[in-house]
C-alpha cells in the first residue's frame, strides 16, 4: 500500500476510495498531486476522486468488462502491450485467445455499451499503457455483480498485458471493505477452504488438520453465507450461530433474509449490540469489542497488525475466543488453545503463509516496520509485493471474458438502475457509526441520489421523501437531487436501517464467487 504513491498511472474502478478507504485515498491523492501520477476513474457516479482525475470514465453500472476490454483493444491495435512481459511471464496461447476476443471490442462498440465516449477510452488506454508503472485499484463496485469474477479476471488481463504486476506501484489491488475481511479469509472462515486457502476437499490438507485437531473433518465444501440464507428459507439449515454479522441489513433482498432467519428452529447471535439480526435470535451472547481484547487484524495489503486491549468490556460481555471455546467444551470438545497469542501460534503451525507470524514478533517490530504474509518462518521478512518473479501458478493465465449484461435491466415498469454503496460518514450496517453523535449530526439519515432530469421526470423533490421500489420491495427515503449521478441511475447508501437499501437489492449471485449483485437493480421512484 505504501508504494501506491510511486505509481505513474492509477486506474480506480468500482471504488469510491476517498470515502470508503479514506487513507488509501490519501495515497492516491498524493501520487496525483505530488508525484505526477495520472489518475483514471471509472465510476458511474461523480465521486470525490473525480476532482483529482485526469480522466473520468462515467460508465453505466455493470459494463466494466466491456470498458476494460475496450481499453485492451486499443492497446493491441496501437501496439501498446508489454510484449516482453507477456512472452516471459505469461502463457502466450492464452494471450492469442484474448487478442482474438478483443477484436470485437472496438472503442465505438464499447462506447455504445458503456456510454463512455470512444476517444476517452482510447486516451485512458494510452495513459495507462504508457505509464512506467500503473496500478489498478478496485473494490466492491467490481465484485458485487453477477459478472464479478469476470470483472476481476478482466482487470488481471489488463495488468498482465501492460506488464504491471509484481513491481512497486503496480498490481491489481482489491480494497477489502472491512477491517479484517482479509484475515477472516486467511484463517479459513470460508466454506471451501481451511487456513491458508487449502481446499477442504484435499485429503492431505484434511489429514494435517485432523491430526492437529484430533477429529475427523467433513469432506464436502459447505455453503456460503448467501447459500445458507437460501437453505434456511428452504428449511435445510435448521440452526445458525452468527458472530458479529448483521445479515438483516447487509444481505441483498432483506425480505428474503428475514424470512430465512425466521424460518430457523434456533438462532444464536453473538454481538456487541442488539442488531437487527440479534433481535430475531433465540439466544443473544454479549461480546467484547475490538478495543477490549487481544488479537490481530490483517489489512487489505496482507499486513498483519496487533489488536490490543485498551479497556474492559462492559458488564459480563466476553471476548469471542472465550465464548466459542466455552461452547465447544460444553459440546464435548476441548480447544487446545484459547488465549489469542497461543491461537496465533496454532494458526502459524498449520498455515505456511503465517508460519513466521507471532504476537511476540509483531510486538517487537519497531515503529513504522510492518509484516506482510506470506511469511513462512520467523526469519522471513514478509512479502509486501506478490508475484515479483513468477506468478503463484507459474505462468500468467489470461482469462478472456465477454461482457454480459447485469441480471436485471431497466424496463418499462422499472426504468431506473439502482446502485448501492457507502458514504464517508457511515460504515457498513451502521451498528458502530450510527451510535456516534457527531457523525449523525453531519449525516443523520440516508438519501436516494437522483439526477435533476430524473427528479423532474418522476416528480421527486430535493429534501422531500420519495418511495423507491424494485421487484423485492420498497422503501421511503429522502431524495437528494444531484448532478453527481447520471440520468437513469439512482444511488442509495446501505447503512440506514430505517431506509434499508438492501430491501431493494437483487440477491442473484455471481456463479463462482457467490457475491450478490448489489450494484445493479432495476428500480422505479416516485414522490411520497
Amino acid at each position: 500500500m505504501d508504494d501506491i504513491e510511486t505509481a505513474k498511472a492509477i486506474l480506480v474502478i468500482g471504488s469510491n476510495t476517498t470515502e470508503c478507504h479514506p487513507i488509501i485515498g490519501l495515497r492516491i491523492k498524493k501520487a496525483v498531486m505530488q508525484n505526477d501520477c495520472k489518475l483514471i476513474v471509472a465510476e458511474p457516479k461523480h465521486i470525490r476522486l473525480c476532482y483529482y482525475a485526469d480522466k473520468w470514465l462515467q460508465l453505466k453500472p455493470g459494463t466494466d468488462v466491456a470498458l476494460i476490454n475496450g481499453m485492451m483493444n486499443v492497446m493491441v491495435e496501437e501496439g501498446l502491450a508489454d510484449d516482453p512481459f507477456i512472452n516471459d511471464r505469461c502463457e502466450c496461447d492464452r494471450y492469442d485467445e484474448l487478442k482474438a476476443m478483443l477484436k470485437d471490442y472496438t472503442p465505438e462498440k464499447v462506447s455504445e455499451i458503456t456510454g463512455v465516449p470512444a476517444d476517452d477510452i482510447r486516451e485512458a488506454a494510452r495513459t495507462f499503457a504508457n505509464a512506467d508503472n500503473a496500478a489498478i485499484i478496485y473494490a466492491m463496485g467490481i465484485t458485487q455483480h453477477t459478472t464479478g469474477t469476470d470483472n476481476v479476471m478482466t482487470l488481471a488481463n489488463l495488468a498482465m498485458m501492460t506488464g504491471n504486476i509484481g513491481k512497486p506501484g503496480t498490481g491489481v489491488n482489491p480494497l477489502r471493505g472491512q477491517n479484517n475481511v482479509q484475515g477472516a479469509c486467511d484463517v479459513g472462515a470460508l466454506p471451501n477452504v481451511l487456513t491458508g486457502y487449502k481446499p477442504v476437499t484435499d485429503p492431505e490438507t484434511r489429514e494435517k488438520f485432523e491430526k492437529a485437531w484430533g477429529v475427523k473433518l467433513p469432506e464436502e465444501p459447505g455453503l456460503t453465507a448467501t447459500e445458507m440464507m437460501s437453505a434456511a428459507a428452504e428449511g435445510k439449515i435448521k440452526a445458525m450461530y452468527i458472530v458479529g454479522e448483521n445479515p438483516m441489513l447487509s444481505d441483498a433482498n432483506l425480505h428474503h433474509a428475514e424470512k430465512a432467519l425466521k424460518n430457523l428452529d434456533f438462532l444464536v447471535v453473538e454481538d456487541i449490540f442488539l442488531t437487527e439480526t440479534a433481535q430475531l435470535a433465540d439466544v443473544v451472547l454479549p461480546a467484547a469489542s475490538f478495543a477490549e481484547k487481544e488479537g490481530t487484524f490483517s489489512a487489505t495489503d496482507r499486513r498483519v497488525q496487533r489488536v490490543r486491549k485498551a479497556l474492559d468490556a462492559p458488564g459480563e460481555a466476553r471476548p469471542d475466543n472465550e465464548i466459542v471455546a466455552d461452547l465447544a467444551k460444553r459440546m464435548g470438545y476441548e480447544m487446545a488453545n484459547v488465549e489469542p497469542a497461543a491461537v496465533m501460534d496454532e494458526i502459524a503451525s498449520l498455515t505456511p503463509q503465517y508460519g513466521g507470524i507471532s504476537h511476540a514478533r509483531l510486538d517487537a517490530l519497531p515503529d513504522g516496520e510492518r509484516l506482510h504474509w506470506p511469511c513462512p518462518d520467523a526469519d522471513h521478512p514478509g512479502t509486501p509485493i506478490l508475484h515479483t518473479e513468477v506468478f503463484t501458478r507459474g505462468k500468467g493465465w489470461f482469462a478472456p471474458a465477454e461482457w454480459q449484461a447485469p441480471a436485471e435491466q431497466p424496463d418499462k415498469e422499472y426504468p431506473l438502475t439502482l446502485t448501492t454503496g457507502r458514504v464517508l460518514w457511515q460504515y457498513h450496517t451502521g451498528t458502530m457509526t450510527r451510535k456516534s453523535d457527531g457523525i449523525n449530526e453531519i449525516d443523520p439519515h440516508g438519501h436516494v441520489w437522483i439526477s435533476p432530469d430524473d427528479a423532474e421526470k418522476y416528480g421527486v423533490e430535493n429534501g422531500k421523501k420519495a418511495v423507491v421500489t424494485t421487484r423485492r420491495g420498497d422503501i421511503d427515503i429522502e431524495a437528494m437531487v444531484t448532478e453527481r449521478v447520471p440520468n437513469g441511475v439512482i444511488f442509495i447508501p446501505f447503512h440506514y436501517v430505517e431506509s434499508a437499501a438492501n430491501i431493494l437489492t437483487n440477491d442473484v449471485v455471481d456463479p463462482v464467487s457467490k457475491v450478490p449483485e448489489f450494484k445493479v437493480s432495476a428500480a422505479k421512484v416516485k414522490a411520497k
Partner: protein
Amino acid sequence: MEQIKVEIDGLACEAPKGSTILDIARANGIDIPTLCYDPRLSPYGACRLCLVEVEGARALLPACCAKADDGMVIQTTNEKLERIRKTLVELLVSDHPMECQGCSKSGRCELQRLADKYGITESSFTGEVHEYDLHRENPFVMRDYNKCIMCGRCIRICREVQGVGVYDFVNRGFKAVPGTPYDRPMQETPCEFCGQCISTCPTGAIKARPYEDFGRVAALDMLRNACAYFKMPEEDMMKALGLESWVTRTTCAYCGCGCQLDIHVIDNKIVEITSPVMVGSGQGNLCVKGRFGYDFVSSSERLTRPLIKKKGKFEEAEWDEALSLVAKKLGDTKKKSGPDSIGVLSSARATNEDNYLIQKFARAVIGTNNVDHCARL
C-alpha cells in the same frame, strides 16, 4: 543510494544524499526545535526556530528546508542561535494566552514546551492582543484563533495530505487567521472532518470537540493542569504517575486500511483517539470514522448480559444457562438433522484468532464446512 557525510555539533553523521539538515539531526538524536514542521508535510521554513549555523554559509539556514551537502559542518546550538530562538518564542508568546492551566493542549503543546525550555512565562514584548470568539459550529473541529501562531500547518495538511483545502490565511497582517472561505461554518465547506488539522496543530488552536467539548473528562483537565504547573510533557507526567499504560496502540476496526490507533483511556472510557505520526498505513492520518467514530465502544446500548428469548421477549440470563441452552440446541439439531443442517457465520470484524476458533468450532465441533463471513457483502 549515494551517502553523504556531515558533522553536526561535532558528531560525524552519514545520510542519504538529498536529506535535510533536520532529517539528519533528528535521525542522530540531535534535537532542533521546530514549530511549523510536520514530517507529513513538505518543509515550509516559516517559524525560523530551526535556524542553524553552517560553516562558510553566508547566513543562518533553516534546517527543515536546507539540504545537507557532503562535508558540511553544522552547529545546531550556540549562544547566538539560542538568543534568536528565545526572541522568536517571546514574540509568539506576546500574543498567546499563557495561562496554560485549563488549555486542552497543555502537556502536548509545542509552544508550551519551547516557552518552558527558554524560561518564558510572559513576553517582554507587549502590545495589542487578539480576542476572538471560539468557532464551534460543527460537531468535530473547534477553532480558537487566540492560540494560533500562524504556522500554517492546518492549511498545509488539509491541502497537501487531505487534498481538500478548507483553510487558507484570510485577512492580512495582525488580523490574519487560517479561516474558511467567507468564514463559512465547516460543514458548509468540502471539509471531510478527518481531523488532520487537529493532529498537526502545535498549540491549542484547533481541538477535537468530541473529546474536548462534549466528552471532556475531569481527570484529563487535572493532568493538563499538572503538566502546566510542573512544566512537564504529558508522557513524562503519566510515566511519573505510573499511568503510562493509559495509551494503547491498536489497529482501527473500520475499513481494511489498517491504520494504527493510540487509544487513550481513563476510567475505562475512551477519552481520545490519535494516530502515531509516520507509523502504519495512515502515517498519523485518520478519517472521520477512525478519529471520532468510537463512541460506540462505551455506548449505553452495548449488550452486557446474555439474553434468552422466552415467549417472544428477551430476558437476561446467566452465561451458564445461555451457553448450556446453545450447546443443547446445537447438539440436538446435529443429532436429529445432521451437522450440515447447522450454519455458522463468522465476522470480518473479529480478529484472526477469533475467526480461526469459530471456523474450528464449525468444523471440529459441529462437523460442517458451513462456515462463512460477510466478505461478499
